[in-house]
């Protein structure tokens, strides 16, 4: 799968100009049998009520909703749209597939898409901004929609492959006047399974007999809310649940050795763990100290210990086999010691290095158990070279920036990996560009800002890849961000579904989902 992803990465048009060749939505897995079976799925994400479809991100995982473009790792591909093309810097054309209907039978034509986009944009300024602040959305034909933005906007196609843009029948949604539970049974989405019943802790989906993508293997799904991971493992073991969506990584321990319970993980990973450093406050204001800090962290040990062996250690912001990779992170204690010696930090009586009467203390901010495990595993080797790591538990992720800016140190964080919108620029920018979500300090590096500015509107995959490697090179030189490990989405399954592919993009159920045999 990783080879496939890399091939896609190497050949795909990264900036959102989709391939004109249109295949069935899941042609790669089109060999399947229509069955008379239902699957029972468990998730800890289920809400009691139906949420406003414009805020919904979950239905796509159940095969209920679909997007105009399907996200892949580092790329996007046609889904409900045949293509989304930038015709001028401020104009995009959405070319729709023929003969696509909502589950309720209404056509997914230009009129429906215009209505949907307008309803989506009624969600507020943030929603408008994420689509480039459109000034007009018009039907330019039965199956063509033209979107004009106020300023040049290169990411429209990628944005429309994001989880908060499921396509739905906006006309029907508006008719329920905010009583979204009334949407049950209305078939507002386009996917192979339609929501037909709702009760506390459980949803029922039936096969969409008129699914535009072809025959659907299962007759339906029952989705149950199971919040306790141990209960999820037990439910699979007891034969009450076939598939559990994305259980915590530690479930692998509970599942190990249990007959009839299988834990699988997507090889391509959308979730990355890393460390933000504050390069403006001592002692990390010295680049040699930051490099030593990075060299003293063993990513292999973190992958093994903190992710129970299911994570993959990283050497750069992207996996080593990605065409975007720039590997630099290594584990080298002697080199770390040498750098600290060069920086003037000498070992003190208790092993912690000192300089000018100051100890080599580094606050490490953590906000959940995962990061506590990461920091605990990293601490011994940091101490070995003379650091004094101080683990500081914060209440939540958003509590980190203030102490990080004020007191300096290192902040452990995770970020959604490249592929969530299909645009790796957005992923990398999150850590390095001023004003982006994970640039918590914020670090401001003019070289990085200029590189991002240069590739922002580019549609040339080679130019984008070169720019992203350049940004990573600057980071490797100055060590603002240390990559640690990545981990993919996970499934717990019974014997019948043990070979079910794990979508790296949280698109678990599709028309081909079926038990083995």
């Amino acid at each position, binding site marked *: 799968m990783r080879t496939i992803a890399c091939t896609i990465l190497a050949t795909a048009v990264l900036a959102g100009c989709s391939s004109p060749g249109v295949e069935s939505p899941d042609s790669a897995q089109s060999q399947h049998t229509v069955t008379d079976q239902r699957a029972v799925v468990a998730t800890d*994400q289920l809400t*009691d009520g139906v949420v406003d479809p414009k805020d919904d*991100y979950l239905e796509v995982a159940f095969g209920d909703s679909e997007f105009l473009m399907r996200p892949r790792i580092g790329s996007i591909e046609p889904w409900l749209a045949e293509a989304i093309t930038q015709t001028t810097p401020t104009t995009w054309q959405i070319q729709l597939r023929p003969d696509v209907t909502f589950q309720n039978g209404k056509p997914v034509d230009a009129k429906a898409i215009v209505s949907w986009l307008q309803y989506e944009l009624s969600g507020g300024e*943030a929603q408008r901004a994420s689509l480039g602040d459109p000034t007009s959305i018009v039907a330019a034909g039965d199956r063509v929609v033209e979107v004009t933005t106020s300023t040049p906007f290169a990411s429209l196609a990628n944005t429309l492959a994001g989880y*908060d843009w499921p396509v739905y029948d906006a006309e029907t949604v508006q008719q329920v006047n905010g009583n979204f539970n009334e949407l049950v049974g209305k078939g507002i989405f386009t996917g192979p399974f339609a929501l037909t019943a709702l009760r506390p802790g*459980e949803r029922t989906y039936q096969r969409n007999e008129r699914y535009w993508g072809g025959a659907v293997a299962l007759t339906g799904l029952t989705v149950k809310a199971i*919040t306790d991971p141990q209960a999820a493992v037990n439910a699979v073991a007891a034969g009450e649940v076939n598939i559990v969506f994305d259980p915590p990584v530690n479930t692998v321990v509970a599942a190990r050795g249990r007959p009839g319970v299988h834990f699988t993980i997507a090889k391509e990973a959308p979730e990355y763990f890393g460390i933000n450093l504050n390069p403006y406050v001592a002692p990390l204001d010295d680049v040699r100290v930051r490099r030593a800090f990075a060299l003293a962290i063993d990513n292999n040990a973190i992958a093994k210990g903190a992710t129970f062996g299911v994570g993959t250690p990283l050497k750069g912001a992207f996996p080593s086999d990605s065409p975007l990779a720039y590997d630099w992170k290594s584990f080298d204690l002697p080199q770390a010691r040498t750098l600290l010696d060069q920086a003037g930090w000498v070992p003190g009586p208790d092993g912690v290095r000192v300089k000018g009467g100051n100890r080599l203390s580094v606050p490490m901010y953590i906000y959940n158990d995962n990061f506590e495990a990461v920091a605990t595993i990293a601490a011994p080797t940091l101490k070995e070279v003379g650091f004094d790591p101080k683990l500081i538990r914060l209440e939540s992720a958003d509590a980190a920036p203030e102490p990080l800016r004020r007191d300096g140190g290192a902040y452990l964080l995770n970020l959604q990996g490249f592929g*969530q919108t299909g645009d790796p620029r957005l992923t990398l920018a999150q850590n390095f560009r001023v004003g982006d979500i*994970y640039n918590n300090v914020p670090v401001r590096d003019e070289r990085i800002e200029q590189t991002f500015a240069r590739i922002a509107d580019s549609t040339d995959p080679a130019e984008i890849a070169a720019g992203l490697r350049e940004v990573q090179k600057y980071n490797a030189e100055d060590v603002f961000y240390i990559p640690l490990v990545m981990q993919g989405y996970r499934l717990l399954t019974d014997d019948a579904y043990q070979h079910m592919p794990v979508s790296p993009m949280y698109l678990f159920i599709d028309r081909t989902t079926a038990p083995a045999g």
Partner: protein
Amino acid sequence: MLGVGALGVAAGRAVGQIAATMLVASALAFSLVPLFPGDPAFAILSQAVGPLPSAEAIAGKRAELGLDRPLAERYLSYLSSVGHGDLTRSWVSNTPVSELFASRAGATALLAGTALALALATTIALGLISAAGSGRWPDELARTLAIGGAAIPPFVLGLLCLQYVVIKLGVGKVVTDGTVHTLALPAAVLATGIACLWIRPLRALLLDALTSPAVLVAQARGASRARVLFVHALPHAMVGFLPFVALGVGGLITGALVVEAVFSWPGLGLLVVEAVRRRDVPVIQGFTLYATFAYVVASKGADLMARVLDPRLRSAGAWAPR
């Protein structure tokens, strides 16, 4: 008539106390918002699988939730809504909280009601056995069971049940459905914790009752041991036991949170556990009010019932609710 009038005054005072308690509870529940770690807007938006929210999205969500308004203003607005029976809307699903509660109250009532009945039956049975055989092996066994049962947290007992009863023996379900078909195990687990806390107090009250003048007179008149226990000692002991039942309602509420999560029982407990995870503050606030109301009503109800049942408590000046 005088007794009935006094009872009415006592009931009126109880209602006043309930109202005052609810007001305090609403203030405490509302003070949860600033006490919650981090920014609820960030927490809600970051539930999504997609990229984490932008600063604009967070600001928009804060405005939508009213978090940009002064706390006092928000509290008064909340109080007004609650006063009109509106527990506001879930921050996660935008569904009215009262609607969410209504859809799950039946399952919780079934579980709690059954557990309460089971706990009472078990407590009375073991309490009687223990008191009747005081100092002998049935008494020792009953007390050991009570101590052991009280020492095991409900979630451990629940997991053990799932592992050995459901998985190994194939009896019952891991994922329950909120109906009588899957009720037995979660109700038994919930009842066990409460019964084990009740057995020893009831035993002590029964032993006390067995030495009361009324029972001694009954024994002197030749009443059988069973008649002494069931007709004389038990009703006598039950008056003193009522406050423990009221306390048990508190145990039921907190126990249900755990048991519903372990058995995926689709009741209010599971809803609030989920709400805590998602920082769905209106649901947590609503549940706090509901739990306070249930506990206070049960407590005051037990007080009133004790006075109705026990003529001694109806003496002058004894009507003031405790």
